[in-house]
């Protein structure tokens, strides 16, 4: 109980001081990784922007700085900019801080390639397969890239979560319900 109150007090103090602890943490990491940009988003949330080819170095730096867990790898498809944004979400038990490591790569399928971080965080194997299944990002060095994951055989290689995937046309073809949809979505009948 006493511990909890102490913690609360600490939190208040930190908010008052404009996230001093997080600032210090970002500074400490950026010193070691000068190629990255970093900022504090809010209490216990920090984020970094890293060039795609330095991601392995950066994650190693994070691991040395007590970011023990990788929570997720998410992909954001920026269609107009022609880029994928990969967000590696890291969690530090020691600092109780969440770090988003963002990096951008081109969204063309043959160019969307990343080095794997499986050897740094073993759990990344799963998330990399996930990103490959839905977006077609190829992680070099992950030998399970070709192994079937969530998607069924029919959707394999279609990368259905890309923004330019024509969902409606695909659904019509797949489920054979041609006459029941309007292309403009304003007059459909179910």
């Amino acid at each position, binding site marked *: 109980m006493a511990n909890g109150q102490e913690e609360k007090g600490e939190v208040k103090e930190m908010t008052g001081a404009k996230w001093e602890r997080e600032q210090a943490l970002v500074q400490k990491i950026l010193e070691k990784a000068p190629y990255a940009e970093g900022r504090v988003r809010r209490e216990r949330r920090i984020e970094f922007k890293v060039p795609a080819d330095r991601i392995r170095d950066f994650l190693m730096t994070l691991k040395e700085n007590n970011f023990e867990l990788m929570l997720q790898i998410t992909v954001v498809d920026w269609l107009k900019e022609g880029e994928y944004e990969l967000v590696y979400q890291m969690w530090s038990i020691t600092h109780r801080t969440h770090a988003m490591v963002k990096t951008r790569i081109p969204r063309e399928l043959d160019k969307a390639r990343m080095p794997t971080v499986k050897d740094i965080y073993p759990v990344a194997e799963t998330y990399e397969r996930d990103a490959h299944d839905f977006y077609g990002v190829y992680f070099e060095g992950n030998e*399970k890239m070709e*192994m*079937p994951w969530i*998607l*069924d*055989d*029919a*959707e394999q290689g279609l990368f*259905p979560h890309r923004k330019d*995937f024509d*969902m*409606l046309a*695909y*659904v019509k073809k*797949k*489920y*054979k*319900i041609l006459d029941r*949809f309007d292309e403009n979505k304003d007059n*459909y009948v*179910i």
Partner: protein
Amino acid sequence: MVDWRLFEPLFEFARKRSLWIVAFCTGCGGIEMPPLMTSRYDLERFGMMPNPAPRMADLFLITGYVTPKTLKRIIITYEMQPDPKYVLAHGSCPLNGGIYWDAYNAIKHLDRYIPVDVVIAGCMPRPEAVMDGIKKLMEMIENGTADGWKRYRENYEWYKKNQDELFGEGWREREARRWIPWLMDKKKKEK
């Protein structure tokens, strides 16, 4: 051997009052099951029991949307149940796709693939609605109109055609072998 038609009303009564549910929570409707089974609505009053094994189950509750991947398992599980068996689809997703009407990975009409006896509309249907559906199913069992298992047998070609169109011919074999190359490789490595 023995003419059991005389006892048919007794059997129908037993079937009606002893529906064992196969616990195969496919979608979000699974969360409606705990209140149904526990003290608030208590389905055990009607002799219903959740049951993890399909071989001894009667009622298949499809609780929510069905993806092609789940549908394969549903079909296999459904075919394992002994006749007579009943299917109760739960929510609008199995009925017509619901909010997943344009999703690439949710099937739109469950009754094209397996026969459905009772459909409960709603997103999600409240436990009361589910209980209403179950009551309807009991009535149908009593008057002999819950004949999905008969329809499945009689129209098996049609159902099979629909299934094969969706998954491709020989999907059972393919699905069973899907992971084998990877598993075998792993085994070899261990040695």
